[in-house]
């Protein structure tokens, strides 16, 4: 079983649209045995919006703990205030001479718990979202929903990925495609861990190129083999040139270019991958070519 992770560094490069198109293409050509999909972008989980999944299994996700003060026990001594490096302990807005912990600010370190002389503070484990196994027309999808504003420590990403992997192994599905999150921290690191191939969707803009370099360095650090595809390629030809030079210098293959095409967001509005809705568009042709190249790279790995 192989894992392909699709990443971009910068958001909005078209990663999810291309991932959805790959899912569609894998279901009609190549990759015998189908695919399992994992949406690792848990705080902006969008893959399900193009794949119309039917939920088959829903599981609560419990993350870290936050501190809570029992107002009946607190004597307002203030010992908990200086030990909190996150400025989360405040005066209770509702009760005089009591302290209160702002859950938005609390980091869950428990320093206050140990400082409190009356044991008024306890750590309360938080439900931070859900994860799902769903059926789609193109394969089983593992995805999640992180409640807004919660810590994205990578644990939920790891859970989604591991369940996708175990499912694939159990059902002898040869390929897991992972739609990765933007950025370069925890969730991204978790999304790339153990991947056999990382496809970077690069955008030829100054910002896109800047972020490409950062995601590339991150993947390099975690030793994920990488290839690049350029999306919205015709928007800035100089940028394409710069991406190609960067790829050459780092010995990374550029697998193809997908043109800037309003049909891609349009098909998304209709809730279908572009390759299914507009199979003959220039972008669909380019994505199909890209998929075939990726598939030939993945198989012998």
């Amino acid at each position: 079983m192989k894992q392909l992770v699709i990443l971009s560094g910068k958001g909005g490069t078209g990663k999810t649209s291309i991932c959805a198109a790959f899912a569609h293409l894998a279901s009609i050509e190549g990759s015998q045995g189908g695919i399992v999909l994992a949406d690792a972008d848990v705080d902006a989980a969008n893959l399900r919006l193009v794949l119309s999944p039917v939920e088959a299994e829903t599981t609560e996700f419990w993350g870290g703990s936050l501190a809570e003060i029992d107002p009946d026990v607190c004597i307002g001594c203030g010992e908990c205030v200086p030990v909190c490096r996150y400025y989360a302990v405040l005066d209770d807005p509702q009760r005089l001479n009591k302290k209160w912990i702002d859950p938005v600010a609390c980091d869950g370190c428990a320093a206050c718990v140990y400082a409190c002389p009356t044991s008024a503070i306890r750590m309360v484990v938080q439900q931070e979202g859900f994860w799902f196994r769903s059926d789609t027309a193109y394969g089983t999808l593992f995805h999640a929903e992180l409640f807004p504003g919660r810590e994205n420590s990578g644990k939920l990403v790891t859970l989604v990925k591991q369940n996708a992997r175990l499912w694939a192994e159990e059902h002898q599905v040869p390929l897991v495609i992972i739609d990765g999150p933007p950025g370069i921290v925890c969730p991204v690191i978790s999304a790339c861990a153990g991947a056999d191939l990382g496809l970077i969707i690069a955008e030829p803009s100054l910002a896109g190129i800047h972020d490409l370099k950062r995601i590339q360095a991150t993947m390099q650090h975690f030793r994920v083999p990488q290839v690049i595809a350029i999306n919205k390629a015709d928007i800035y030809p100089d940028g394409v040139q710069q991406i190609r030079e960067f790829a050459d210098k780092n010995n990374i293959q550029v697998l193809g270019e997908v043109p800037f095409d309003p049909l891609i967001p349009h098909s998304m509005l209709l809730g279908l991958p572009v390759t299914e809705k507009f199979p003959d568009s220039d972008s669909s042709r380019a994505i199909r070519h890209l998929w075939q190249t990726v598939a030939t790279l993945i198989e012998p790995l």
Partner: protein
Amino acid sequence: MKPIQIAVASGKGGTGKTTIATSLALSLAEKYHVAYLDCDVEAPNGHLFLHPEFNTSTEAVIRIPRIDKNRCTLCGKCVEVCQFHALAKVGKTIMVFPQLCHGCGSCTWNCPEHAIEEIPNPIGVLESGKARQDFHYAHGTLTISEPMATPIIRQLKRLEIPPQTAISILDAPPGASCSVVETLRGSDFALLVTEPTPFGLHDLGQMQGIVEEMRIPAGVIINRENGDYLPLLEYCTKHHLPVMLRVPFERRIAEGVARGQTLVEIYPEYRQCFLDLFDSIAVLANQ
């Protein structure tokens, strides 16, 4: 007077948040003292549009424990109190795992032998200076392979800004998790930049959840609009989110932005829109 703090956020990445934030800064800088903070420390891009010259650079650090072996009795208290498993008792040593450490200080205070001192562990760089258009600019760049973004955002926001600053503009990271919350903390207004697509709408919903919980007044900017996308407009009405600006989907804008131009450089007439936008923000933020 405390400057008004405006955070520009989006949930979904690539909606044009930086384009809006930089254009807003450029427009307002003509009339007000502006400070711009690029809080997208994983992929800071504002400098590509505003071309700042930096005159100060400091390290962003997490204070991690160092254990004095001569004092440590291997009692294991520090391992027990650490919620993040950044410490382990291994044979005759206490091992520190810097990348797991949040720098909370709990181990330091709880060590009965006072055997722990804290040493700075660099996780990135904070730089500040002036944008080419002569307003204050600061950003943070997280070191590659560091797993946490919030500590550096927190430190970036604590950097000094010029005392005469009237408006500070914060460009938030994409997503809707802890790093966005850290950016929004203390903001008077959140400008939510969205795209008229199901993706944009879904992620706007995530952002709405955050601003509601944090009680921050917010408004929406619809970017790359291509005719009315009714579900988005209905959502905004239902959640009392004023639509404050609508920017059309145009190839010319996309091409300009790709080359490093801001919206107001591509279409100078937007300057007035942003000035008006600020007047509305000032009203909404004070309600």
